[in-house]
């Protein structure tokens, strides 16, 4: 009996040993499986956050139990949880990029992933346009220079995308499947121009075909697939001016049904990309400026100087409407005497300390009695603005950015120049409009929006350019800020962003145009209903090169030089500022876009490197 018991025990022991050996193998693979599940749980957390963000619209409105602790994965049959957190500080979620960290937990095993979510904005591109045509109301574009269309007709014929049905000619009301490119105005891209960075149009490009050296970056268009009459063939997503030359608006026979033939693709043949909807107006920025920014009223002069100095003249701005940190204590911008206006000197650092959010808004006023609209000592309403700072005099010479006296002569020095014609299309009727006249070397993260126009009156540079890159206009790095700089300037005019170069016939004697030669601009521009232009582009003399370093987004496209090529700027270069790939971002500019937040990057984090809530 004893022996039987002993034998039985030995047999049982052997069975246990064999079983244990088998289990040991199973446990190991089970741990791997659990690790996979934890990763899946972490990624499910990212998906959950994205879904909630899509519903909430902005990161600050997202609510979830997973933001404060472990939340069970909906529908999961095992013990699986996730928790997530918005890594981006709440006050930094307006850059168009946020980072979310999610950790999955399954049976005590955790894995953590970090996802970068991005909203598509204009400053993802070196160049974006809503339409490649010249705006219908652009001075001199459609009338007075041989154009065939009135402004109203240009509005009807040319405002939509090429691939939208439009009137064929002025001779009838017949609609064609596309815009008549032969009667709308376009601006050429020249072979000497250089566009470094991704370029996109919501429209259809009208250029080519010998532009291979112009583009360094992806070129895309929102022209949908079609047969060349109602959309673009895959091999050619652009209109060749040599195939579709300018024609007669009154001649129906000049309507070309197939404007885009299928041809052998060129290397830069644009790919397809969905349209980037432009915000209709900058009112979102107005609210930010009123809350914690600088809110100016009517024509406003802003100059920046190295050291974070901002010099402002804004004769219509009242004390009641502007935050205290945007003016000098004891002084008022409002000009009781329109001929004696106050210019204030502000410190960016001081403003930040007092809560300045970086947004500047220049609004319009319809008040006909506003100081800028009143007659000055010259018995004219020009200039609207009369700067008065003696410390930062407009008639002094500066070494950086280099400039001499802004005016050669004139009884009253200001903007627009005193000798501006009464019917000047750039100024007439705009005495109360929110136009900002800007120049200088800025510091900080700034967004300047204007309810009307923004006029550039001199070099517009990141102040960190002072370390180099600004002496030689022909150098490749001319006007390119250092990659370590954290300064950025967003420009958001409702209508035009233009270079202030009034007609020589009335401006040449008073305005110091040489300050605008070889113009460099460091900015991320978003022009909502107009374009980037040169004032009186058809009369100005040669100004050298124009280099736009940053991002240029415009509703339409305008000329910056004479068609003959002997005036204005040539060549025109657009350099994408790589820092705008989210090292820096103009404050609150991304909030204007309604694009969805999409997954940009996902990375896994080292285990144990992030704090976690207590395990449930």
């Amino acid at each position, binding site marked *: 009996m004893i*022996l*039987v018991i002993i*034998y039985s025990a030995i*047999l049982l022991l*052997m069975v246990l040993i*064999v079983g244990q*050996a088998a289990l040991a*193998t199973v446990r*190991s*693979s089970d741990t*791997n499986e659990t*690790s996979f599940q934890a990763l899946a749980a972490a990624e499910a957390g990212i998906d959950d956050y994205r879904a909630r963000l899509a519903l909430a619209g902005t990161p600050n409105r997202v609510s979830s139990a997973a933001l404060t602790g472990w939340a069970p994965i909906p529908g999961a049959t095992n013990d699986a949880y996730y928790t997530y957190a918005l890594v981006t500080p709440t006050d930094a979620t307006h850059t168009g990029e946020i980072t979310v960290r999610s950790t999955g937990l399954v049976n005590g095993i955790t894995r*953590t992933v*970090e996802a970068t979510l991005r909203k598509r904005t204009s400053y993802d591109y*070196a160049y974006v346009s809503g339409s490649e045509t010249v705006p219908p109301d652009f001075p001199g574009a459609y009338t007075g220079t041989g154009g065939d269309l009135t402004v109203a007709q240009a509005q009807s014929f040319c405002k939509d995308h090429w691939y939208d049905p439009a009137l064929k000619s002025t001779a009838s009301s017949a609609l064609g499947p596309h815009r008549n490119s032969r009667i709308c105005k376009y601006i050429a891209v020249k072979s000497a121009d250089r566009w*470094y*960075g*991704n370029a996109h149009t919501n429209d259809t490009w009208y250029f080519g075909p010998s532009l291979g050296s112009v583009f*360094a*970056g*992806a070129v895309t268009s929102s022209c949908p697939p079609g047969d060349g009459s109602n959309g673009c063939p895959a091999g050619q997503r652009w209109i060749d001016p040599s195939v579709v030359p300018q024609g007669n608006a009154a001649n129906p026979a000049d309507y070309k049904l197939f404007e885009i033939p299928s041809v052998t693709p060129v290397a830069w043949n644009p790919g397809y990309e969905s349209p980037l909807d432009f915000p209709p107006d900058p009112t979102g920025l107005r609210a930010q400026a009123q809350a914690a920014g600088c809110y100016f009223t009517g024509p406003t002069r802003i100059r920046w100087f190295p050291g974070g100095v901002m010099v402002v003249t804004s004769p219509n701005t009242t004390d009641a409407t502007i935050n205290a940190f945007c003016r000098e204590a004891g002084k008022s911008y409002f000009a009781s005497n329109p001929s004696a206006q106050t210019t204030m000197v502000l410190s960016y650092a001081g403003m930040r300390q007092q809560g300045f959010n970086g947004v500047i808004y220049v609004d319009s006023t319809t008040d006909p009695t506003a100081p800028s609209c009143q007659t000055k000592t010259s018995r004219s309403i020009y200039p609207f603005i009369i700067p008065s700072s003696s410390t930062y005099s407009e008639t002094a010479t500066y070494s950086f950015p280099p400039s001499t006296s802004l005016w050669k002569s004139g009884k009253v020095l200001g903007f627009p120049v005193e000798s501006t014609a009464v019917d000047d299309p750039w100024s007439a009727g705009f005495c109360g409009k929110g136009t900002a006249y800007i120049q200088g070397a800025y510091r900080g993260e700034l967004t300047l929006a204007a309810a009307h126009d923004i006029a550039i009156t001199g070099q517009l540079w990141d102040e960190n350019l002072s370390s180099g890159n600004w002496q030689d206009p022909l150098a490749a790095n001319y006007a390119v800020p250092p*990659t*370590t700089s954290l300064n950025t300037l967003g420009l958001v005019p409702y209508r035009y962003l233009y270079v202030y170069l009034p007609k020589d016939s009335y401006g040449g004697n008073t305005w110091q145009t040489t300050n605008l030669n070889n113009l460099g601009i460091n900015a991320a521009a978003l022009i909502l209903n107009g374009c980037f232009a040169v004032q009186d582009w058809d009369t100005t003399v040669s100004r050298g090169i124009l280099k736009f370093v940053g991002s240029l987004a415009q509703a339409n496209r305008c000329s910056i030089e004479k068609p003959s090529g002997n005036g204005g700027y040539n060549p025109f270069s657009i350099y*994408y500022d*790589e820092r705008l*790939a*989210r*090292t820096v971002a103009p404050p609150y500019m991304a909030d204007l876009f309604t694009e969805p937040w999409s997954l940009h*990057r*996902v*990375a*896994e*984090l*080292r*285990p144990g*490197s992030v704090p976690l809530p207590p395990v449930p």
Partner: protein
Amino acid sequence: MSLIEVLVAVGVFGILMVIVSAFFISGFGAIRDANALSSVQQEQRNAVLFISKMLRYIDNETEGYVPGPAITSATATEMRFFTNSGIGSVNGYPYDVTVRTIASGVNAGVVAEIREPVVSAGVVTSYVALPTRVLVRSAPGHVPALAFTYYQVSTASGTPVDVASPPPPVSDTAAFAAWATSVDKVEVAITDSGSGLVSKQLVSLVNPL
């Protein structure tokens, strides 16, 4: 119970024990062999999982309109790439990783050579090589063979499908760069020369390259 009955019982149990013991001895041998193979397979599997984790989060070295490359070299048997997969102490910046087979020496086997980014003021200024990680060590009779298969999405049939796409030579810079930016999935396989055991994993790349 008589003495004879006891002796018979002992004899019968003895014979049974011999038979059962023979089975157990044979069984233990099989378990030992299975354990050895399981160990090889487990090591392979761990290696494949580690490589998969790195492949899954392959990422561009830098961003911008001309982003830094994500895959810098690739053949059927080795691969070099940047990855954001939490394999070191630096979070948020891609590591430079080479996965290949070393034929001889102390690190013979399938290895991961990892270079850790050195970050200054938010910018990667250089990389530091970490000690080589031997993922599957070569042993007598067990030499691991590493293989990569690359896939790209093809819409030629009208429906997107993954098709195998061998990499062009790295020396053909333009062709390789174009190929590298369109890789969609990577399959990694490790084969044991002794047993022929294969561990493989098909990995979808999370990030656009």
